[in-house]
């Protein structure tokens, strides 16, 4: 079940995304430790022997301070499952003192007490606290076949708890390429409305053929021709960085892969042009994916 994502060498002629400015900083707080082991997980997170180590609270705080001085616009906590780390609430409080903050979660650990703590944190900050809760299909049977038993009910319960407290989460779903375009969005929105969710918010992401969703076969790379005429300036890695075990990486999808690491220490050292070397860079450019909330 592990199937850690595979790194590839950086080709000498790999095109580069010019770095513009730091807008988003992500923290892979729990590494790839998760309480689920979703079949399509691009970084193969799971409960057993995670391949990527967690960050310490001290590391997160050091990068938060550096990011604030650099004028960062948004902060994100991802994983793995960030709520597996008890320090998450304190770190979210620190992050919210700097910038709007988002936590990506499967929702299973958001009980009433956790939702209350999040609501208190949100109310105490000038900036928005966003929760992104993952659901991948509009029925328990279809969703749990991908995400694991109980994932649908747990996520929906968390969504309702958050919505009831004015935290109106964004439901994030990975689309299946076999599905009719637009159908997953409509179906999930209908599920939320039927479930009494007052502000149905749905974000659809493409399936990335990495980690557990990797397929065999040719894996094309981007060339200079693909990203001509400033095209690369619109890619997320031109304005986003990820802190994960080992340093600062180009993007949340490649976090932890040695060749995606741009600096071992200071964030400032990672604000450089990014080689678009990995096969997943093709999907990022072709789909126009943004890992941001909107």
């Amino acid at each position: 079940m592990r199937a850690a994502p595979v790194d590839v060498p950086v080709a000498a002629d790999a095109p580069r995304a010019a770095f513009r400015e730091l807008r988003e900083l992500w923290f892979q707080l729990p590494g790839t430790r998760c309480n689920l082991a979703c079949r399509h997980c691009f970084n193969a997170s799971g409960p057993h022997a995670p391949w990527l180590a967690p960050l310490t609270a001290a590391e997160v705080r050091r990068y938060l301070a550096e990011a604030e001085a650099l004028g960062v616009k948004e902060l994100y906590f991802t994983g793995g499952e960030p709520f597996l780390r008890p320090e998450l609430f304190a770190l979210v409080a620190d992050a919210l003192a700097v910038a709007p903050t988002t936590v990506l979660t499967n929702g299973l650990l958001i009980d009433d007490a956790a939702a209350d703590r999040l609501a208190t944190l949100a109310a105490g900050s000038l900036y928005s606290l966003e929760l992104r809760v993952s659901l991948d299909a509009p029925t328990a049977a279809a969703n749990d076949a991908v995400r694991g038993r109980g994932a649908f009910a747990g996520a929906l319960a968390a969504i309702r708890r958050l919505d009831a407290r004015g935290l109106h989460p964004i439901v994030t779903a990975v689309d299946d390429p076999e599905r009719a375009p637009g159908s997953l969005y409509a179906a999930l929105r209908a599920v939320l409305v039927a479930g009494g969710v007052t502000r149905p918010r749905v974000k659809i992401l493409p399936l990335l053929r990495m980690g557990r969703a990797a397929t065999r076969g040719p894996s094309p790379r981007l060339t200079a021709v693909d990203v001509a005429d400033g095209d690369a300036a619109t890619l997320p890695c031109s304005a986003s960085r990820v802190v994960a075990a080992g340093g600062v990486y180009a993007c949340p999808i490649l976090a932890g892969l040695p060749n995606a690491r741009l600096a071992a220490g200071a964030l400032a050292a990672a604000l450089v042009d990014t080689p678009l070397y990995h096969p997943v860079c093709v999907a990022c450019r072709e789909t126009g994916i943004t890992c941001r909330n909107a």
Partner: protein
Amino acid sequence: VALLGGVYANHLALEAVLADARVRGVERVYCLGDLGGFGPHPDRVFPLLRDAGVACVQGNYDVSVGRGLADCGCGYTDPRDNHFARVSYQYTVRNTSAANRRWLAALPAALRLTLGDHRVLLAHGSPRQVNEFLWESTTPTGLLERLCDVHETDVLGVTHTGLKWQRALPSGRLAVNVGAIGRPENDGTPAVWYTILTADPEVAVEFVRVEYDAETLAREMEAEGLPPEFAETIRTGWWTCCLEAMPVKERARGRH
């Protein structure tokens, strides 16, 4: 000076706002862009702006309509928002004269002025990106300080989100999102808001609420075949679409 945010073809609100600014003795009026979109008869706002000598900044809508681009450049990814954005944009392009499109294409991306001893920079979304959303709850103070540094200004004025806010920065500088005059404030009332800046000698911000004939505008929108959701927003004051980009704090204050 008076600062007007997105007009969105709301010619009736524009008339009311210009009249209000005149009564208040405003010396100069600036519009921060997005003249069309959402509302009916987009050509009607141009003579009003020209006759009142309003200096305009180019918004993302103006870039798209002016250059004949494929979409409004609002940058939505949500399918529902994109549907409404497409309807609105196609209607606006179809109903904007070639002369007005050329005028939009020639607008500046930013305007600089001085107010007392203060440098003021006016942009549409942000000075670094025409369609960047600077919402109150997603714009860190550190970012605003940096934008003021990089773009060498003491006062930064923007629009694009449609919701007004201001923030005094620790450095003594000021950021203000002037809101929009083309759409209500997502507060359950049809009124719109514009902004007056004064320097006496410190810069002060006043948000001014203006009522106008929203019912007539809503009927014009319906007669033009624009989506009923648009007219509902104009009548009720609650936003019904283009909600994807709105952060949770602002979203929680609305109805939808």
